[in-house]
């Protein structure tokens, strides 16, 4: 029997972090982002770390395989793949649906878990379910745990920075906790869910050969992407806004450094 891992990474697109985001109330009563379809997007950063860690683990563990399960508007997923596919080898499972941050974690988790259940050749006893510790859009840190629950995975870890596979096959895991510390745990083995923080790997370089290889499966996966209904659940939004805070700035010029220091220390101690 193979000892390799079947690593399923959940991750989708979020707006490029440098973009200006402005919420507007959509026609359906659900918030959306202004010009959402025009915003350049990137792979959700924490999910990105999860994917790179998955590829790294798969590369050093024979007979392992990596799937990336992504729910998002098909056209934008395609665009995301143009940069992502050059990074590491993976097989895409694409779901055509909303990638909005205003969707509900459980609604997204339902679509993702059903897609994972449908992956042909996936051995769930060898499965490591990877994702980000939170998405940069929904900002909740809830989806991966619900996907895990729905797949009956009860060994779950969040804000993971390190995973080591021990000689006996057990998993030694470091999770970020309060006070800049780590919680160290050992899990007997797969299946397990790991919601990654930044991990320890740098972003892989773009590799044209990886890109060529991935594209052979990515384009067909996009073409057969199932449409999924991802919504905001039973949430009713009263408002969404970017808080505006403009202060009356007091500009202090020509004051000697001694005076400024005195004023600052007084303020620090107040």
């Amino acid at each position, binding site marked *: 029997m193979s000892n390799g891992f079947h690593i399923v990474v959940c991750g989708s697109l979020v707006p490029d972090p*440098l973009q200006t985001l402005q919420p507007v109330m959509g026609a359906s009563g659900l918030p959306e982002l202004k010009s959402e379809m025009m915003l350049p997007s990137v792979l959700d950063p924490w999910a990105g770390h999860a994917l790179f860690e998955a590829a790294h683990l798969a590369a050093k563990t024979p007979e392992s395989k990596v799937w990336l399960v992504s729910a998002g508007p098909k056209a934008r997923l395609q665009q995301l793949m143009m940069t992502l596919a050059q990074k590491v080898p993976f097989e895409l499972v694409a779901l055509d649906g909303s990638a909005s941050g205003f969707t509900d974690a459980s609604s997204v988790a339902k679509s993702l878990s059903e897609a994972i259940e449908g992956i042909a050749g996936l051995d769930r006893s060898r499965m490591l379910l990877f994702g980000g510790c939170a998405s940069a859009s929904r900002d909740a840190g809830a989806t991966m745990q619900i996907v895990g629950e729905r797949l009956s995975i009860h060994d779950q870890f969040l804000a993971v920075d390190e995973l080591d596979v021990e000689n006996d096959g057990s998993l030694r895991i470091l999770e970020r906790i309060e006070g*800049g510390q780590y919680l160290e745990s050992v899990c007997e083995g797969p299946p397990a869910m790991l919601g990654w923080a930044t991990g320890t790997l740098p972003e892989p370089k773009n590799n044209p050969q990886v890109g060529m290889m991935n594209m052979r499966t990515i384009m067909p996966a996009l073409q057969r992407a199932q449409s999924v209904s991802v919504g905001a659940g039973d949430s009713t939004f009263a408002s969404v806004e970017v808080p505006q805070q403009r*202060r009356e700035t007091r500009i202090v010029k020509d004051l000697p450094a001694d005076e400024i220091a005195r004023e600052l220390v007084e303020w620090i101690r107040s």
Partner: protein
Amino acid sequence: MASILYVAHTEADGTLCKPALEALEAARQLKGSLGDATLTVGLIGHDVQAAADAIASCGADRFLAVAGSEFGVSRYGSDALAITELVKASEATVILAPATSRVTRVLPGVANRCDGCIDTQVTGMSVEDGQAQIQRWYYRQRMVATLTRDQSPWFLSIAAGVYDAWKGDTGTAQVEILAVELDGGATRTRVIGTKATDSDTQTIRPEADLLLVAGAGWTKKQADGQTHVPDAEQLLLEFLDSTQASLGSSKSLVDQDAEGQAVMGFLSHMNQVGQTGSTPRHPKGLATCCHGEEPHVVGWRFINQRRAINMDPNCSWAQGKADVLYVADAFEVMKKVNDLLSKG
């Protein structure tokens, strides 16, 4: 009638942490606003009596707990069983818990087990027409939404630093201990313990009163045409030592590290504040040698009082982003500040 369950876990010393006491205050306020509601306290830990006694006077209608050595550790499997049992026993319709790492990991799974819904990192609550509304942030804390839900039970984790920590007299709480059987599946994971990260690294200290942000100006050439990075390092470290302030950085400064320029050894991307970094919460913030451009200032959303030191009177801090801008040489000012601080 709403049935509020407040869930918290004890720390290694058997106490409740500050965020837990803040969440308790949130639960009490919610009960008060709803009027017709009950409040149950549900504790998890190795031994919970001391913690329950410490909050005995909080006004809870009932104290429940799941206790024992297996529940003294932070582990998804056992925590999920414990909280599920607390929800069942209390017949809760709203569950509030502090957004600690332990709760953050387990609460969504429990919500799923209980056929409930969940919102995390809640920063405010109110009651409109008898219905609870919450505030929470989206897109890396860049926009805030006010929303409500119909589904029950509704799980809420309360962000730290929003509510005042509950304070009250200790007493003797009558704690009903619930029996929770752990099957083999719940203990497949063994918790080894905690581990400190590299002690040389200065990180954001969530408890600090002051955030000091270092910008790229510290590594640029000064009036004498030279850079003074070692001096800058010393000034900043001295300041951090004497104030115990949290250390943040602008993106451009930590990016220089990746570019191989001389930068401060104790800074990493973990310190980065802003649109592509973190959004820390501190009562005060002092920006030094940093221009205060919009993408950076986005990370200052939860910094109440803001002051900045910059040579450029037209820098962005002057455009309504800081309360006070000192147009001055930060090297000179911070040296004087350190002198004054060292004098006590």
